[in-house]
Structures are given as C-alpha cells and as structure tokens.
C-alpha cells in the first residue's frame, strides 16, 4: 500500500493548462502500471485570475480502495514532490484559497523533492525558498517560466520535461517507460517523448539540509471559534481620517493583516516621485487600493497589497512616472517613498538603472497580438524548444 501525491504550484491562467497536463499525465501514466489516481485543482483557488498562485494535484494509489483515503479532500496533507514552473513563486505563495503567505515547500515531505524550472542556480533559489526542519531535494530543470498550454503560446514541452524529471526523482510512482507511453498516447508526438527522456537524463538534483534557505517568517494564524467571531459577516474597516501610517497627514486604506495577495505579482510599479503631478489617477484606479497618500501628496505603492496588474502604469498620464519592473529585481516589499525621503540621489540612480533595464522587457500579461511570444523568443536570441 503506497499512495503518492504530487502538487504543481502555478500562476493562475498562464499555467493552468500546463499544470493540468502534468497532473493528468501522472495519473494516465500510473494507469499504464495498473495503478489508480485522481487529478484535481485546488477548489478555493481562482485559477482564471491573472497571476494568482494556485495548485493542482495528482494522487496515485495501488487500488481504488486505497485511493478513497485521498478523495473528497481539498489537498493532500503532504506531497512527495512539489513542482513549480515559475521560480518567482519560490518566495512563497498566497492563493485565494487560504490566508497568508505559504512556503513553496510547505507540503513537501521529508526527503521529498522540489522541482523548479529556473535559469537560476540552486544556491540563488535557496535564498528565496523557506528553510525547513527536515532534509529534502531541490531539482532544477533549466528553463524560463513556461506558459506552455496557454493557447497563445507555443508548446515548449515543459509538461513532458517535468514528467521525465518526476520519473527520475520518484521512480516508485511511475517509471519513465510508462510516462513515455502515456505521452505518446496523449500527445501523439515522438518529439515530446524525446523531451521527457532528455529531461530524465539531464536533471540536476541537489540535497538541501535542514536550516538551508530563507529565514523569512512562515505564516501561522489561529482561527477563532464562532462565539469569538464578529457576527453578521462584518469586517472592520479603517477609521475615518486615518493618515499615512497612522499619522495626521495623507491617507492610508484599511488592509487585512492576514491576507496580502502580493505573491500574485510578477512585476511591480516603480515611481519617479520627481515628475509625479499628484493627479490621483493611480490611487483612484488601482483595483487593490495599494497606493498610500503620503503627507506631501505623493503616492507610495504599498507593495504588500500590490498584485502587479499594471493598471497604474497604464493610467498615469506622465511618461515614465510609473514603470512596471520585473520581480526578479527585488528581494522584499520595501517602501520606495521611504528610500526616496532618506536618499534622494541614491534613489535617482537606482531608478535610472532599474527602468533602463526594464525598457527591453515586455509585461508578463501584456500580449497584444498573435505571434508576439514567438517574436519575443526570437528577440531574446532563443529558438524554439530552447533546451530540448
């Protein structure tokens, strides 16, 4: 009696089909070996929303009776393998289905494996990944965050490359040959079978010791009983006249202490305070009310509340006043306004560099025409099937 569980942590809408294909591939391959399984997305997630972290699961058991122990659940208590096809999720994720930031490896078993598609080194990734009390393995599949399976993107074989990697790190679940059979049947593509085999051979696995990784706090939250909860579904808002950070000047919206949502973000707005005309448009239009009004009438992005949608950049009437910048350039949710107040010259220099670096990039969600993805790949000097 052995039940195996695998999760795919992914970004809403962009990777929904990818994660589904991976989990269905696992179950269909297990079927080849006479095992039974189930594949399901986490119900409380909102996988149709732009960038929202979400999860997909595959659970495989020896027979139907054994599988019943894993059915009618929202998610397994722990998983043998965690798969992440966007390395910006390694800092942790907050889905719509729970409260507060969870570590990427929160469900990963002792001696289990975290498979990440990334261009980074294991050491660089471990700066982001929460440390654990037990050892596990970190496997890296070389590659960028994949949108494979989203209809406007080209199939880059990430789904089958991950299945090949799974055969390597968890051979007890399903063997490589069964994966290859299932891939052949599902996709009718010899090239995809080759990709799975290559990935099996090339996978790099690094053991991670307890204590290795980021020391950022893990989220914990005590849920109250019904007698202690406020009745009538009431949530307290911010008191009238609440100023910037509790002061007299400016304005700050009320925000949940336990529900932040920033892990949805792959880009964040960077503000040039010196050309801001204080027109209020970013503050009015932000769907997450993430702009705080400073006592001098400027707008500071509260990056704990920002989902990175880019509406502020779109509505800002001043060229280059708000620029969306990729999350890989940041390590935390610092206040740009604080930095600007403290060190204007330093901020100016940083702003110049960071926005220049951005000028070559396109927004992660900004697909405007058919074939744009292929053009971007070509512009970046990468052909199809990069590592295959």
């Amino acid at each position, binding site marked *: 009696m052995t039940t195996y569980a695998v999760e795919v942590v992914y970004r809403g809408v962009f990777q929904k089909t990818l994660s589904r294909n991976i989990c269905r591939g696992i179950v269909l391959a297990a079927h080849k070996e006479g095992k039974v399984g189930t594949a399901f997305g986490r119900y*409380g997630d909102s996988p149709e929303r732009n960038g929202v972290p979400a999860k997909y699961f595959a659970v495989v058991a020896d027979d139907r009776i054994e599988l019943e122990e894993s059915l009618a659940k*929202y998610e397994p208590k722990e998983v043998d393998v965690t798969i992440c096809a966007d390395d910006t999720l390694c800092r942790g994720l907050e889905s*719509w*289905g*729970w*409260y507060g930031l969870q570590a990427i490896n929160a469900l990963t078993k002792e001696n289990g494996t975290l498979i990440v598609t990334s261009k980074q080194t294991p050491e660089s990734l471990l700066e982001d990944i929460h440390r654990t009390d037990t050892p596990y393995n970190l496997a890296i599949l070389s590659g960028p965050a994949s949108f494979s399976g989203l209809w406007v993107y080209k199939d880059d074989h990430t789904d089958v490359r991950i299945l090949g990697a799974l055969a390597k790190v968890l051979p007890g679940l399903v063997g490589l040959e069964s994966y290859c059979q299932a891939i052949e049947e599902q996709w009718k593509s010899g090239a995809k079978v080759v990709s799975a085999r290559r990935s099996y051979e090339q996978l790099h696995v690094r053991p991670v010791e307890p204590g290795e990784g980021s020391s950022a706090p893990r989220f914990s939250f005590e*849920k*109250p*009983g*019904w007698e202690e*909860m*406020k*009745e*009538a*579904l*009431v*949530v*307290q*808002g*911010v*008191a*009238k006249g609440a100023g910037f950070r509790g002061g007299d000047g400016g304005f700050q919206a*009320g925000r949940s202490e336990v529900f932040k949502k920033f892990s949805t973000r792959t880009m964040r707005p960077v503000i040039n305070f010196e050309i801001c005309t204080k027109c209020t448009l970013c503050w009015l239009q932000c769907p997450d009310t993430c702009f705080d009004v400073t006592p001098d009438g400027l707008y500071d992005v509260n990056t704990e509340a920002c989902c990175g949608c880019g509406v502020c950049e779109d509505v800002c009437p001043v060229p280059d006043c708000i620029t969306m910048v990729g999350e890989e350039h940041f390590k935390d949710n610092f206040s740009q306004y604080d930095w600007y107040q403290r060190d204007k010259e330093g901020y100016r220099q940083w702003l110049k560099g960071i926005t220049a670096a951005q000028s070559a990039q396109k927004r992660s969600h900004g697909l405007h025409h058919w074939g744009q993805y292929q053009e971007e790949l070509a512009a970046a000097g990468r052909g199809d099937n990069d590592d295959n």
Partner: protein
Amino acid sequence: MTTRTQTPVEREELISGSEAIARACALADIDVVTAYPIRPYDTVMQFVSKLIADGELKCEFIIAESEHSQFEIVKHASAVGARTFVGSSGVGWFYAMEAIAVTAGLRLPVVAMVGNRALDDPGAFGCEHNDALAVRDLGWLLTWVSSGQEALDTALIAWRVAEDPRVFLPCAISADGAFLTHAQQMVRVPDKGLVERFLPPYRRGEFQLHPDNPITIAPQVNEDWLMEMRKQSDAAMRRARGVIVEACDAFERVFGRKLTPFVEEYMTEDADTILVGMGTLAMPIKVAVRRLRAQGQKVGFLRLKWFRPFPVEDVQRVLSRAKAVGVIDRDYSFGSPFHSGVLSHEVRSALYDAAARPPMVSFVAGLGGREVTQPLATEMFTIAGQVARSGRSDNETYWIGVRGKQS
C-alpha cells in the same frame, strides 16, 4: 415618579388583514418600504401608500422594477440602520429569492409580509403556503397569522424580535391570500404612543454601515469560515425563542392583551383527537371542533403561530397526550415521506422523542385557495378518529376536498 394622567387607548376599526399590517407599519414608524405589485400582497402597498399620502406615515416608499430589487433595497436599507418593511406573494417572493437568502445570511432584520399565494404556473391567486415555506431553512423567522388583529399585533412583535441584537434575523409574516388579506374585521388599533413603549428604536450598533463606522459586510469567505457563520445564525435562531416569549410578556404589559407566544390551543386540554394547522384554516376547524364537541366528541385544534423557530416544546406538550393527531397542510411536498405536506413532517419529527408518541395522519387541504368547508373539516376529524381507535398511524396522506380517488 410621574402619575399617569391619561390611559393610552386602542381604537376599533373595520380593516382587512393587509390594512392591519399597513397600520402596523405606520405605528412602527418604518423608514423604508419597497413595493412591487402582486396579488394578494399588493393590497398592503396600496394601504401603506395611502397612509403616507394621508400624512400618517413619513418614510421612503420605493417602487422597485422587480421583486429582486424590492428585497435588495430593503436589505441595504436595513444595513444602514433603517427600519424596513417589504412583502410579496407566490412567484414574486421566489423571484426575490437570492436577496431573501442573503438578507438572512447578513443578519438583517427586515420584516416582510407574504400574502400566501399558489406558485404560478398555472396562474392562480389562491392561497397555498409553499411560497413562504420555501425559505424555512434560511434563517428567516416565520410566523402565520389567522386574523386581522393578529396580523397587526404580530407585525409589531416581528420588528421587536427581529431587531433585537440577540437575534438580528429577518421575519416574514404569512397572511393567507383572500381569507385574511382581503377580508375586513374589527381590529383594535393601538395608539402610537403605546407602540413606542413596546417597540424600541432599531439600533444596529457596531454592525451598522455608516461613515463613522467603516465596515465591510458580506465578504467572500471559504470553507474555513462559513460553517462558523452558519453556527452564529443557528445560535441567533435558538435565542429568538426566548426573545419571542419576552416580547409577548411586554406586549401584555403595554397593551393589556395576553398573547400566547407560539401556539393557540383550542379545546385541546381533554381532547382525544387533535388537528394541527396554520393560518386561516383555524376558522373552519374551530367551528367543526365546537360542533363535534356539542355531539360529545373530544376533539381539539392546535394552531402553530410560529413555524421558525418551530415550537417543539408546545407541540410535544399538547400532542403527546392525544390519542390521534392529524396535521393539515395547505402546501405540498411531492415525493416526501408519506407524500404529505411540510408541516406534517415537522410535527412528526418533533414528536419522535415525545413522552408519548401519538398515532398520526396527514392531510393536504385547501390548495389553490380552495375553501375548507365544514363537511371537509368534519371529514378530517372522522379520519383522525379512526386513527385514534386503531391506535396506529395511517401513512396515507388524505387530500381533503380533491375530486377523484385518493391514490
């Protein structure tokens, strides 16, 4: 201490059940009322608008474009602290169902009048109770009245109970279409000053939507929260029992008229055979009780005034001493156990662990507003009497007054 210089008065007037509820709206000094026409409820909105035109009531009278909006508007008005009144009938009530469900979920003490009406199609104006009963599980306080006087009294009690912070649940007063909504009887209408002593102002406190009290209501929640919120509604409904008793005590102190909180017992004390029902069915059944009593038969009638919260203690106390119980439903529940109506199931459930469990029989009567005549009322007592003699429940549900075979 002040000496009482003037005894507040009640004035007798010849008014319909609908007008009685409209008068209660004026006496309760409601803030917001919304309307959308459907018979028989529409008579209430006509009387309320007349009271406003006559200067006897000052309130927002909003004619909505549908029942859904009608109930949404009072829901929001109630959230900002307005005393509200609303109502509908039959499929109109059903069209508002989404708003009706969330009004209870958000714990908003809207008071509604349901002029009971059959559900279309086919189009029918007559009385059936399935409209109001459809919300029986949602957290609405549900009461059925049987006279114009009771309609007025119950409306005042409804606001007091619903708006009590221990409860904060909406309340629907069911009034049988035609027999109550459209029939005029002498009703004692109390002085407004008297009502003010009975009915305190609606204070929503920390739950009130107001710029000085910035709150969000109705958040999105998941499986981690909703069960606790449902439990809170359950606790509120349980507390409502005591609050109803308190309100009836206060009613007697202020108005000098004694009301039994949950049920009306009619010659049940020594009765061998007891029929149970709600609403205006009480009239023909009570007549039949008197006639059969005159013939020496020990029969009685138990009328449930409140359906939610369900008066389980009264039902057990009164019915467990009977030799047979017949439950009359002016509603249906197709495919249910024994194919009886809703009330029958509830009474059976309440009696399951009663001290003594009497044999039972179920009746469906008066559907589509059909009259329950004396022969029909007597027929029900006859069938129930057979059950009493046999000592065993009869699981046939008898359709009383239907043309054709029983089954």
